[in-house]
């Protein structure tokens, strides 16, 4: 084939299918690929530790972590820690997300509110919210209130920014259309602006809830008897790596569960996207 010279080419007339060059740039993989990565990493660590080419001091044996996990489950301690954490996450995250979507929508709709609040949001966005925990303790008490407030506050700022950006990006011609049909202001907001902003709001929610999990742990480390953060802190101070890792695994599972819940909502709510 490589030796076909120019003079000969017109006579031989090689017939072959056109090579396929399309495809790609559209990531859509097998959902088991993710599971496989986890299994592979865990297997490598387990085998490495057993065979000695990973030092026993660096990592706990995955099977031991699993056993710790089993004990947690059997003794019921799992629920003692998981329940307070999940409820803090849900209450704080929901408060922050709703407030963020509300304020973000107002910023997106009203010039005066935008002018007044955008600098404020820009000022509080980069502040590590955990630094404000003492303040929240003074305001809302040492109990659940300060934890809800911290998590809500952490979710709030990215939600505000994501929401007003999404509202800004809603197709103006659709809003014009609504006005031209004499739709009421509230109808335009509810039926055109908010659905149009939904893709941006949901991707903001991914970030907001990830931050909520980080702050959940931080808040529980700084003052809680029960909760995954408290559990990890206690294990860490005893250098009990098995329990530490069991706690970390719970957090990862919480993260994966949140992300797939948002993915599920996206698939249902954003079915209209081309």
């Amino acid at each position: 084939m490589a030796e076909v010279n120019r003079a000969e080419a017109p006579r031989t007339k090689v017939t072959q299918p056109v090579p396929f060059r399309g495809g790609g740039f559209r990531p859509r993989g097998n959902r088991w690929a993710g599971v496989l990565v986890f299994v592979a990493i865990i297997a490598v660590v387990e085998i490495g530790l057993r065979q000695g080419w990973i030092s026993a001091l660096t990592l706990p044996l995955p099977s031991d972590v699993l056993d710790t996990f089993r004990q947690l489950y059997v003794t019921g301690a799992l629920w003692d820690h998981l329940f307070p954490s999940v409820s803090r996450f849900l209450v704080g995250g929901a408060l922050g997300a709703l407030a963020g979507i509300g304020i973000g929508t107002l910023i997106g709709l009203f010039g005066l509110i935008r002018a007044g609040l955008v600098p404020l949001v820009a000022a509080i966005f980069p502040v590590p919210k955990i630094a404000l925990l003492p303040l929240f303790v003074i305001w809302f008490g040492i109990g659940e209130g300060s934890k809800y407030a911290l998590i809500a506050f952490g979710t709030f700022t990215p939600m505000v920014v994501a929401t007003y950006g999404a509202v800004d990006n809603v197709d103006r011609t659709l809003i014009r259309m609504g006005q031209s049909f004499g739709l009421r202001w509230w109808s335009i907001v509810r039926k055109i602006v908010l659905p149009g902003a939904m893709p941006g709001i949901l991707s903001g929610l991914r970030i907001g809830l990830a931050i909520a999990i980080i702050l959940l742990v931080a808040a529980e480390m700084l003052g809680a008897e029960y909760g995954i953060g408290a559990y990890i802190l206690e294990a860490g101070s005893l250098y009990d790596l098995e329990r530490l890792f069991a706690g970390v695994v719970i957090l990862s599972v919480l993260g994966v569960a949140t992300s797939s819940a948002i993915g599920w909502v996206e698939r249902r709510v954003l079915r209209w996207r081309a």
Partner: protein
Amino acid sequence: MDLRIEGLSHRYGDTEVLRDISLEIPAGRIVCIVGPSGCGKSTLLRMVGGLEQPHAGQVLQMGAPPPGCLNPLTFVFQDFALLPWRSVAGNVSLVLEDHGLDDPDAIIADVLERTRLTDFAQALPKQLSGGMKQRVAIARALAVNPAVMLMDEPLSALDAQTRELLMDDLIELWQREQFTAIYVTHNLAEAVRLGHQIVVLSRRPGAVREIVDIPDPLGARGAMEDVQAHLWGLMRDEARAADAELLDG
């Protein structure tokens, strides 16, 4: 309901866009507006529809809108402006929901039937061709039983064949029920097919250059090449001058 535009002028900053436009739009007629790009046709239509306020002059509604009219001045947009998250029926329903009607479903069914979309009532816009999307937009406009339809290049996002078919649809709709319309277009063939009256605007600032009446009934017209040639003669010089201005500017 007739419409009268009186001495309408407008400027954006230092740019004078429209100069002293006066027009009558009698009920039951289609008035086409043609003119070079950027002469202010869309601006004029937005002012007629009450989406923008002119600097001078006014737009008057004369007489009451027809009974059962929910939105006297109703737009049909060039880019359809359908809500992508609502089905065909949902997009029509959108403009009826604020009126507390007893039986919106009957209206929806009726307009979808008139635009031959009944089978697609539950489809999402992303599943429709361009021509169908514009038929949905027309169905939505018909649903509010408008006194005047304001159409800004409604067919220019479509291919030539679809445009022909939709023009036939529009003529058929008009023959069924004589709606009033202001129809902005770049396409002189469309203008002579659909217009009872063709208003030629000059280049920016847009002023009325000439008004051509076409008495022949809709649906029984040929290509009307003589009228098209006359219109093109009017527009060519304007278009050339406008083009040169853009190059200079």
